[in-house]
């Protein structure tokens, strides 16, 4: 009987063939593992673009994986991707809201310092302009940093639409499902995002 590595400790008590319900669980668990393995790095980078902090991004991605696996694993696998990104975007928004509340609260405290999450404190702002001698890899890294900064400056819905459509490659319908809005709204958000990004980055790129 095929065994799933991470589940061995729970499986070892059974010597004979597993009953059908357990095989079904294993089957879609394997499929889910493949799905998550395929999507996790992109999801992490998208969360990192939105949140900047890698630990926060990892927390949100992990939470998203857990919620998807617990609540939606039995759904058809074709639905997983929009569901995953819907959970992810909700998680990102929740975290940003908490940060916003915290920042507002901190400003009321006497002697409170500037919140490190403040955009004005972004260390990436201090990155020097590209010089002709910089190797290609470094230039690409810098271009990505500029893109990330511009994406963070976008309204949340435009950023979501751009990342889901452009980075993740979701079609309009999937993006609409992930964002919980109409396809028309997705097109509008995406179009505005591209327009703004082109204006900001066009000359630099």
């Amino acid at each position, binding site marked *: 009987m095929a065994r*799933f590595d*991470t*589940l061995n400790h*729970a*499986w*070892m*008590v*059974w010597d004979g063939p597993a*009953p059908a*319900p*357990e095989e079904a*669980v*294993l089957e879609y*668990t394997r499929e*889910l*593992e493949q799905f*998550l*393995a395929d999507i*996790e*790095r*992109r999801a*992490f*980078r998208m969360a990192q673009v939105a949140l900047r902090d*890698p630990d926060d991004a*990892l927390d949100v*991605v*992990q939470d998203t*994986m*857990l919620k*998807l*696996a*617990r609540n939606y*694993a*039995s759904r058809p696998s074709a639905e997983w991707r929009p569901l995953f990104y819907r959970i992810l975007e909700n998680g990102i928004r929740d975290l940003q809201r908490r940060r916003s509340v915290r920042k507002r609260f901190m400003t009321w405290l006497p002697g409170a310092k500037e919140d490190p999450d403040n955009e004005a404190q972004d260390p990436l702002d201090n990155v020097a302009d590209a010089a002709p001698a910089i190797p290609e890899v470094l230039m*690409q*890294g810098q*271009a*990505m940093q500029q*893109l990330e900064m511009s994406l963070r400056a976008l309204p949340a819905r435009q950023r979501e639409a751009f990342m889901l*459509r*452009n*980075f993740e*490659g*979701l*079609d*309009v319908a*999937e993006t609409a499902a992930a964002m919980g809005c109409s396809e028309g709204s997705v097109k509008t958000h995406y179009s505005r995002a*591209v327009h703004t*990004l*082109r204006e900001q*980055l*066009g000359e630099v*790129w």
Partner: protein
Amino acid sequence: MNEQPGNSFEERAQALFRDSVEGLDFAMRSRLTQARNAALEAAVARRRPRFLRIGVLTPAAGVTAAAVLGAFLWLGSPLGQHAVTVADGQSNLEVLDLVASVDEGSGDAMDMLQDDIEFYDWADKAANPGPAA
């Protein structure tokens, strides 16, 4: 399913993003893998039929089973049976006490029991009370 961006700006953005994904360091990849495994284990634990979840509780179940078996053996032993079946209500400990309290001058207690046929007869009747004649 996927609609690819159709101009150079969008293609460049996509390529940069892919490069940044490929450039994730090993430590972060490892943490992501751990997160994935944790999610999958949680999912399977939730989906596994209830009767199969007992596999996780094997150590506790083993201890409980051992305790039940021990209690069963104790109550099912000849000692325990005597405590229940002796007709005159004497406990097993009382019988032992009688045996142990025999005068030392009358010889070994075991020798006395071997010689006392009446005692064996009484014990047999007490342990297996037959139908009233």
